[in-house]
């Protein structure tokens, strides 16, 4: 039934795994840039801006990532663009990531005691200056562990791109399975692939968190 050796399977999964990594990097980098802009706008903006960003965050956190992918894919078609699975997946995952990071980072900025804002203000620093010199450096230390932790969610999220036809690790797994029919081995290997990508990040995030709170900064 099968002419595939284990090495054939592994090789094909590794090749497809590259795209999981690339898509993760795109989503994370793009998401971080958009997320940062949103965080700053949300902290400093007028209420309609804050309200809109909050809505944006709630929408992405309150709906399935799979639906967001479908909407990006089919929505572009409605707008008259013929987008590839690549583009749709990149856009959807970037927006998804930006919403979650915006939420995480807002929490970190808010965790900086309000006395710090007041101290910066009485020294004559304006909003951006206070943010840049006083608040962000402190918020950054708080933000690193959960941000690293969330990168794991991004990597796992890329698996859903398989559903709109993007060939990454999971899609390669289903395609290989259709040809080789060794589901137990193949999906165990696919899972292992994700585990190898995610577990070190999870461990690192936990380590950072321990270091941060172990040092008594809060």
């Amino acid at each position, binding site marked *: 039934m099968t002419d595939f050796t284990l090495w054939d399977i592994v090789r094909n999964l590794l090749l497809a795994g590259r795209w999981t990594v690339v898509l993760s990097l795109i989503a994370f980098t793009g998401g971080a840039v958009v997320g940062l802009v949103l965080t700053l706008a949300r902290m400093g903006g007028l209420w309609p801006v804050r309200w809109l960003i909050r809505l944006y965050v709630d929408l992405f956190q309150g709906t399935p990532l799979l639906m967001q992918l479908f909407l990006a894919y089919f929505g572009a078609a409605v707008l008259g663009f013929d987008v590839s699975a690549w583009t749709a997946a990149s856009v959807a995952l970037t927006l998804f990531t930006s919403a979650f990071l915006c939420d995480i980072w807002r929490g970190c900025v808010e965790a900086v005691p309000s006395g710090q804002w007041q101290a910066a203000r009485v020294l004559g620093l304006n909003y951006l200056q206070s943010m840049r010199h006083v608040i962000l450096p402190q918020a950054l230390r708080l933000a690193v562990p959960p941000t690293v932790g969330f990168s794991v969610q991004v990597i796992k999220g890329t698996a859903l791109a398989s*559903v709109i036809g993007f060939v990454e690790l*999971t899609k390669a797994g289903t395609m290989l399975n259709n040809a080789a029919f060794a589901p137990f081995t193949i999906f165990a290997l696919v899972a292992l692939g994700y585990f190898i990508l995610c577990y070190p990040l999870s461990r690192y995030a936990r380590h950072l968190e321990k270091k941060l709170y172990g040092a008594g900064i809060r």
Partner: protein
Amino acid sequence: MTLDFSTLLPYTDAILEGLVTTVWLTVVTTVAGIALAIVVAYARDGSREGPSGIVSRLLGAYVEVIRNTPFIVQLFFLFFGLPALGVSISATVAALLAMILNLGAYTAEILRAGIDSTLKGQHEAARALGLSRLQSFRHVVLMPAFSRVYPSLISQCIIVMLGSAVVSQISVFDLTYAANFIQSRNFRGFEVYLVVTLIYLLLAVGLRLAFEFVGRRLFAFRQGGSS
């Protein structure tokens, strides 16, 4: 680029059927997943040595594997992989199993944080009163731990509900499956997915409200002030 939602009307039944499936999958998963998490958290809380140390380590591995792999892969592994070992299960059972195992692992980890923050004095008071480890866990540790991590627990249950959209990929007739089904008939993908996405959003809001309602009753003890 005109939107036309009227083409959805003939498919109301399909959407309803999908909605019912998504809701009951979520309800069963929430109950069973939290129960599983309690057992796992208790077992992991035990000694790190001897036979219970091995159990604790195995459960730790289970939690890590679930947390560091995508839900869709877990689902495929159970649905396609288990029959290859001679254990054949229906798509619905596979979906339910995958969801429960997923929520169980995350919740066990969330709960552990709550248990770890139990004050030493509470343990000592329970011991001084003669409670065994299990009695102390059940009567003294569990409820305050739940109340401390309840916000994270709510979020996790919502994540699992939203994640359940993936079970459509093994042909479980849930809300997403209904959307795919309609899309394949009327070719109005965007409209269908927009409507279904909004339904998910309402489900998420509803689930949160339900949890908060239950939480207010369950954790009334947290409110101070005179009685």
